[in-house]
């Protein structure tokens, strides 16, 4: 059932991100729904699942995107690993904690991308565009992350998916 939960979440995220009515072309007021999915699974799921979810989400995003395959897969794997490792002793049901980890995820995702772009000599952006996109994305993501987490938890409950392993120090 976990696979069903993840597939539904991924499909909704990808459809939201590629929809011409919900999003605009290029940078601007856009939200990386796929990243929010990764944040949710990294916070609320244990074991190796967050890392696999991060990789697969990034890979599917790459396949739909015009960017090179592997760019998002790498950055989202790194993000999932970082968030999952650091949230072990944190009360993840707190909205403040979710905001903090979302902010961290956005920064790690961006850094991961930039490093790969530099390594593979791909065209990067002007610092001005990077900063403004980072700020816009962070603000929108912070507003949306509690809703995404609640929504996915409700979906998991509806599908009767039980979290096998919770991070230490957390309660359901």
């Amino acid at each position, binding site marked *: 059932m976990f696979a069903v939960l993840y597939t539904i979440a991924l*499909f909704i995220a*990808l*459809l939201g*991100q*590629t*929809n*011409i*009515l919900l*999003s*605009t*072309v*290029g*940078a*601007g007021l*856009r939200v*990386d729904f*796929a990243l929010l999915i990764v944040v949710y699974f990294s916070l609320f799921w244990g*074991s*190796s699942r*967050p*890392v*696999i979810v*991060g*990789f697969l989400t*990034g*890979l*599917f*995003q*790459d*396949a*739909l*995107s*015009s*960017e*090179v*395959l*592997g*760019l*998002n*897969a*790498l950055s989202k*794997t*790194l993000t*999932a*690993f970082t968030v*999952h*490792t650091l949230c072990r002793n944190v009360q993840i049901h707190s909205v403040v904690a979710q905001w903090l980890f979302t902010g961290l995820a956005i920064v790690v995702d961006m850094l991961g*991308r930039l490093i*790969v772009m530099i390594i*593979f000599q*791909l*065209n*990067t*952006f*002007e610092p001005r*565009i990077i900063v403004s*996109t980072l700020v816009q*994305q962070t603000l929108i993501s912070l507003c949306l992350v509690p809703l995404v987490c609640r929504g996915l938890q409700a979906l998991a409950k509806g599908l009767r998916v039980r979290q096998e392993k919770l991070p230490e120090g957390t309660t359901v």
Partner: protein
Amino acid sequence: MRILSERWKPIALSLCLILLALVCTTLQTRLTSSTLFFEKLVLSAVMPLQETIDNLVQGVRSFWQGYIDLLHIRGENLRLRQEADALQGKLHRYEEALLQQQRLRELLDLRAQVLPYPVVAEVVGIDPSQWAEAVIVNKGSFHNLRKDIAVVTHQGLAGRTVEVAPHYATVLLITDRRSAVDALVQRTRARGIVVGKSRRLCELRYVDFHEDIRVGDTIISSGLGEVYPKGLLIGTVVSVHQKSYGLFHEVEVQPAADLAKLEEVLVLIP
């Protein structure tokens, strides 16, 4: 030992997946530039659903707009009739000019200009990455599309195809940082390269410092590079910075096509 392996498992797995991602990137950047089977598969799986959602929303929207439009239809009809008359006159003049140009071409013994075959495509999605300026259209290799074909709108050049699945294709817009179009300033024939600058703007690079270029100048494609046919309208110069040093002008170009509101495009198959 078991606790240790449990502890190291996510780290080892993360490293393996990061390596795998790097292998994917290397494969696509260094070895193959064509659309991978996996990419075609995902495009073909997600986009039909997206198209259905779009059609539903468009249906509801057009129903509502149809009702609103009925209220203004008479005035609109009169205005359109007048506009059609004016356009008819213009069309006649252009037809005359085209015939004259053909005659002159033949006279000069020039090769007749081969016009590309246009395929109408609808925009059904946008690139999921906020770092890319690209759209997804509902025509693909099944409709004779292939990689690196120019895409235009009625307003001007939009971009080129970069990934082609059987029924869908990804179009990289000219404002994307990876896009480059060899261009001419229509008035002076000064040459340069239009490069995407993101945020719906382009930059005309490598225009010689001695060339005359002004705000309002029209930029067209030069036809070099075998992707974009010659003479396609790219945009208008919105700013020119003349530095006291350097070899080139710094020119910002506003694309003629409204790339934020693309709905239908023409793919120009050579």
